[in-house]
């Protein structure tokens, strides 16, 4: 008989349940303060808030414990809070289409980074030409809808599958070669794609493709302004919610894959390919799958980008873009979906925030990747240790911490 203790643990449970979403709201609020307003005081207030949360989290073991507990056991609350926030935020900035534009680009970047994470993070194969898949998707979608009059939905799916096909193709040499060979193949593929997009006539050459139509949902174009209760909303907001749907879908897919056997096997390939082979894993098939899936996401992202901006040119898809996405993955945390999303958000929003320092943009990307790799190669959020409640997999070959360096 110990009612007090029981009572205690129930309050704890409720507390844990609440505290995590609250913390999420505080973190989002601090980011909001930094990103949305263009003045020194709110920026510093936002940064202080963020730093405060971070120190609070790392200094108070109790808080840390209950947060971790909340994340582990009550994911639903966290996800719902996140979705509500993602839904509300653009409504508060509807007078600033520029902010919503930044958020859309961030959403597309997260989709891109999730795709690259399949290869670099989960499977451990370098890919330095990822922008090519993004470009293939964007061009496929743009060409199908401008030259062949296909609807957005057909173009989108086609873009994903065409990009996936190219991913599979580029993945082929991985079957027989080592990681540095793969780095070269991917760079070469990226450059060849860039040159071809630039030189071919049907891709519009260096001038790219313009007048790409906006997506239509049952005949309603996303470029139409919504008016509600006497307020008119900028067209960017339509796109924001539209891309958000895809983002949520892609995140769900990424989590599903991560938690499935495929994710585990990918990790096995990364840690020790020969051992994986010996354990009966079809490494060839899995490597190709990681390329095809990563490219599929890139293709979807490319299609969304093309139909949002309405204009694409080869310049959008050069080596620097590949490096940017790589930076997102490495900064966020290899093979950690939440981390990668955070990395993608930071690296796509920060350049807009520091527009006056644009000259240092690529230098900063390089430095971030380099310093992260040298001093914290696990990224912002460390790769999680896999846990299986009813262990199908007795051997924990998947996730050793040394894997992060």
């Amino acid at each position: 008989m110990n009612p007090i203790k029981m009572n205690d643990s129930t309050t704890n449970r409720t507390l844990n349940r609440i505290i995590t979403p609250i913390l999420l709201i505080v973190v989002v609020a601090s980011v909001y303060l930094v990103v949305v307003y263009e003045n020194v005081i709110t920026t510093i207030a936002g940064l202080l808030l963020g730093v405060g949360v971070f120190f609070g989290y790392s200094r108070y073991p109790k808080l840390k414990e209950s947060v971790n507990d909340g994340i582990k056991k009550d994911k639903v609350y966290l996800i719902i809070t996140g979705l509500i926030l993602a839904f509300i935020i653009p409504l508060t900035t509807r007078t600033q289409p520029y902010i919503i534009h930044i958020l859309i680009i961030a959403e597309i970047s997260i989709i891109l980074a999730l795709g690259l994470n399949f290869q670099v993070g989960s499977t451990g194969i370098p890919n330095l030409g990822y922008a090519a898949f993004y470009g293939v998707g964007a061009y496929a979608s743009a060409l199908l809808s401008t030259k062949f009059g296909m609807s957005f939905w057909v173009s989108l799916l086609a873009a994903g599958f065409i990009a996936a096909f190219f991913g599979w193709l580029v993945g082929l040499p991985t079957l027989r070669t080592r990681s540095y060979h793969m780095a070269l193949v991917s760079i070469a593929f990226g450059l060849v794609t860039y040159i071809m997009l630039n030189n071919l006539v049907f891709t519009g050459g260096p001038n790219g493709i313009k007048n790409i139509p906006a997506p239509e949902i049952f005949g309603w174009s996303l470029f139409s302004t919504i008016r509600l209760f006497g307020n008119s909303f900028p067209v960017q907001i339509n796109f924001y919610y539209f891309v958000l749907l895809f983002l949520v879908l892609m995140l769900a897919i990424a989590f599903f894959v991560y938690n499935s056997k495929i994710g585990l096997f990918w990790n096995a390939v990364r840690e020790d390919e020969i051992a994986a082979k010996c354990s009966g894993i079809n490494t060839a098939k899995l490597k190709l799958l990681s390329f095809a899936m990563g490219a599929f996401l890139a293709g979807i992202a490319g299609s969304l980008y093309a139909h949002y901006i309405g204009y694409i040119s080869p310049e959008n898809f050069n080596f620097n873009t590949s490096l940017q996405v790589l930076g997102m993955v490495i900064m966020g945390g290899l093979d950690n979906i939440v981390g990668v999303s955070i990395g993608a958000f930071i690296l796509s929003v920060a350049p807009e925030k520091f527009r006056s320092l644009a000259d240092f943009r690529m230098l900063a990307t390089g430095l971030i990747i380099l310093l992260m790799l040298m001093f914290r190669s696990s990224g912002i959020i460390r790769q999680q240790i896999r846990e299986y409640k009813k262990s199908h997999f007795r051997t924990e070959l998947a996730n050793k911490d040394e894997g992060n360096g």
Partner: protein
Amino acid sequence: MNTFFQLFISALLVSSLYTLVAVGFTMYVGVINLANFSHGDTCVMGTFLLMPIFLFATKMGWLSAGAGLLIPVIIILVMLLTGLWGAGIYKILVKPLLVAPRLILLLASVAAGQVIREAIRVIYPNGSNPQVFPKLLPSGILEISGLRFGYDSLTIIFLSVICIISLNFIIKRTKMGLAMRAVSQNSDVSQMMGINIEKTIITVFIIGSALAGLAGILNGAFYGITKFNLGSNLGIKGFSAAVIGGLGDFQGAIVGGVLLGFIEVFAAAYIPNGSQYQDVFSFLAVIAFLIFRPSGILGEKIFEKV
């Protein structure tokens, strides 16, 4: 015939530049199994180190006094500096990451290349634009029965051949060369045999980077310009050459460099509209090699270590 001959000289020129870069790549892979993607940017580092030194020498009036003597001295000085630079890269970047998974090291070298490139662009005055590079090579044209040789191309080809031959001598005939070969074969065993691995690796980095610096300087001097991002192209081509020849194999780098140079020049000349697809040809060649013969022309078959 005449056209063919001119193309041949031009291909030799391009080949020698690629070879100088490829040698470094292949040696790194040999001793520490690392594809150093910042190697191409070391070439450009050489050109940007040379320009201020040259400018200074011109200002002091040393150049008018004895250009013929001073230019080789400056070039050798810059080669030494880039060699030290390479050693620095090893000490600061590569060595701490040798314990990490190879993927991390590979990505770090890519990022280091980007940092070097962008740092040059931001730091060097007006660095975004192409820089006029001093004309270090003898000008003029040697005409033998209608065939025209530029003295500058001949100098480059000659210098590269000298470098390769002396490097071959170092590798084959000296104690250091023996150590390099031993480390390439098996670094653990060679350590047990009393070879100073650290010293050997640093020597390899110094030699590789000095040759890359020379390649950059010759490239700049021949074409008259240098630019912060020239290294990414030279680096990728050099690495491609090393892969075609067989990574880790010294002679392979030479064979690969020559082959790549010839593919590039002749494909551009003889395939209609080939010039704008020049890079596509060389990359397709590399990809084809990686699919059908990943070990390269001279490389041995790859066995995976367990």
